[in-house]
């Protein structure tokens, strides 16, 4: 592991960090891999890979069940990961951290428990025009079931959400506001603290989809004062299949359980079941034990570097990439918000994003092309797709140069 960057004040040593990620040494079609699809999923450092392996080799057993040595150790390690997640987002208590499969499951949990209990016919759920499908569809399903309405705060041309417009769309029927912290398709950072203030002034709770924000900026749920915050392990250099729903204790306590099964109960008879305390009430069944523990290792890893330093590095890379691609004739950046992070979406005159993706792939450059699971965003700009480069803690200016050179190649080919 790169100890250099942990020394206070040491320069951000991207080469040392890159050596923590074995996959970055891969060659694709004989060229060095340039991985610019971090918003889809981030690569894993050795610390995470080894943590998974270590669990299976040294302390794997089911958790919260056995009296035996292995189960106790596995339980301790899993609980330690929960504590790491608590500290990472500065939640008040570890029981406010529900371990789930990911952000999508977290949003669905809130829709199916808080939502089903509190949203009725004629009520409204408010989201924004830049949401990922996972922060649209669960609410549509809820609204359809309840006869409620899904309201959408419009996106402006830059890809920003105007808090004043959002405020005007809060009505006495609004039961919940659910917004992304950072747009996966455009890179826009939303003023979620301000949004929470506006909603709270009317007694409306706020869920923040933090899937893209958590790997890219320090997040403090108490400072944001959001009621729920959802994020995924795999976007913050941890394993897939693990994610977090943070919720304020009082709200979580008042919510009915979601899935029934083992671990979420206190006692079961055929007449009546009493439910377990938080967080277990929402964690039915054997969880992703190894993944959860390795997720803790991922949080240790990024904390060791420092989220503020990762944010500064990615800001530099994004600014450099923005400047460099802007010089390419016929290239248009989609999403030009004043505050952006990590994501550069673009289109090229006369060339379909899919073809850009194929040409870049043969140069060893991995980007995402398509609608990014945000079709309403694409529709807002009259597009069916964009090309998207998204950055991580290990990307370099040299990789941006490779991206720019490859886009020039695309231009030469198709014009």
């Amino acid at each position, binding site marked *: 592991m790169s100890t250099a960057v942990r020394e206070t004040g040491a320069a951000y040593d991207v080469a040392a960090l890159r050596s923590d990620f074995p996959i970055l040494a891969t060659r694709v079609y004989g060229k060095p891999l340039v991985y610019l699809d971090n918003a889809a*999923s981030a690569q894993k450092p050795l610390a995470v890979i080894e943590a998974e392996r270590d669990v299976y080799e040294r302390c794997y057993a089911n958790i919260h069940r056995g009296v035996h040595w292995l189960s106790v150790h596995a339980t301790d390690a899993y609980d330690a990961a929960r504590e790491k997640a608590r500290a990472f987002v500065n939640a008040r208590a570890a029981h406010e951290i529900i371990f789930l499969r990911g952000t999508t499951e977290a949003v669905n949990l809130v829709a199916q428990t808080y939502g089903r209990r509190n949203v009725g016919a004629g009520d409204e759920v408010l989201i924004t025009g830049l949401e990922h499908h996972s922060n649209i569809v669960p609410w549509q399903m809820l609204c359809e079931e309840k006869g409620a309405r899904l309201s959408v705060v419009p996106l402006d041309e830059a890809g920003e959400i105007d808090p004043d417009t959002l405020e005007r769309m809060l009505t006495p029927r609004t039961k919940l506001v659910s917004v992304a912290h950072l747009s996966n398709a455009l890179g826009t950072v939303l003023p979620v603290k301000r949004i929470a203030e506006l909603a709270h002034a009317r007694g409306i709770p706020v869920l923040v989809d933090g899937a893209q924000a958590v790997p890219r900026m320090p997040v403090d749920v108490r400072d944001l004062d959001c009621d729920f915050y959802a994020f995924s392990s795999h976007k913050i250099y941890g394993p897939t299949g693990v994610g977090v729903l943070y919720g304020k204790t009082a709200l979580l306590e008042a919510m009915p359980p979601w899935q029934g099964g083992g671990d979420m109960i206190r006692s079961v008879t055929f007449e009546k079941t009493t439910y377990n305390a938080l967080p277990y009430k929402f964690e039915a069944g054997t969880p992703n034990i190894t993944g959860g523990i390795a997720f803790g290792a991922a949080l240790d890893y990024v904390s060791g570097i420092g989220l503020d330093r990762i944010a500064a590095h990615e800001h530099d890379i994004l600014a450099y990439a923005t400047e460099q691609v802007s010089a390419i004739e016929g290239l248009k950046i989609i999403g030009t918000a004043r505050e952006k992070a990590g994501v550069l979406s673009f289109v090229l005159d006369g060339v379909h994003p899919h073809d850009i993706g194929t040409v870049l792939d043969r140069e060893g450059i991995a980007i995402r092309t398509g609608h990014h699971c945000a079709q309403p965003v694409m529709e807002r700009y009259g597009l069916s797709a964009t090309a998207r480069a998204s950055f991580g803690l290990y990307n370099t200016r040299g990789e941006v140069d490779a991206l720019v050179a490859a886009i020039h190649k695309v231009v030469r080919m198709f014009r």
Partner: protein
Amino acid sequence: MSSDLRDLYQEMILDHCKRPRNFHAMPSPDRKAEGYNPLCGDRETVYLDLEGDVLKDVSFQGAGCAISTASASMMTESVKGKTRAEADALFERFHDLITGKPNGANGPELGKLEVFSGVRGYPVRVKCATLPWHTLKAALDGAGVPVSTESEGPAAESGGA
């Protein structure tokens, strides 16, 4: 361009992409169908005029990638004047070509559609090339519902972030 990419983006494909043939709507077609690829959001509409069993006129419209646009353009040229059975056989042969299946002995001549042989080196692009053909099939069947590339075989990636 690397030789590899040249296999996919052959000159004729780039030409049909930039200047697609039969690229217009028909005001009152006998049949039409819409095709959709949820992977990339591409949509193409295929229009058909029939004379008995013969595809008298074929055209298309829509927005797609180079492969799907060129495939649609060259498809309209290839099937015009053919019978339905001949068009079906041509699609089957074309599908074998781009998925790298060995040629059947008795299939129809593909002619210039052979330029799509490079697609077999790019499995994720097969659906781009077949979209117009599936849409044509839907128009011939007169199904009236949009066809999706995801109705064939295992679903491709359409999720993620």
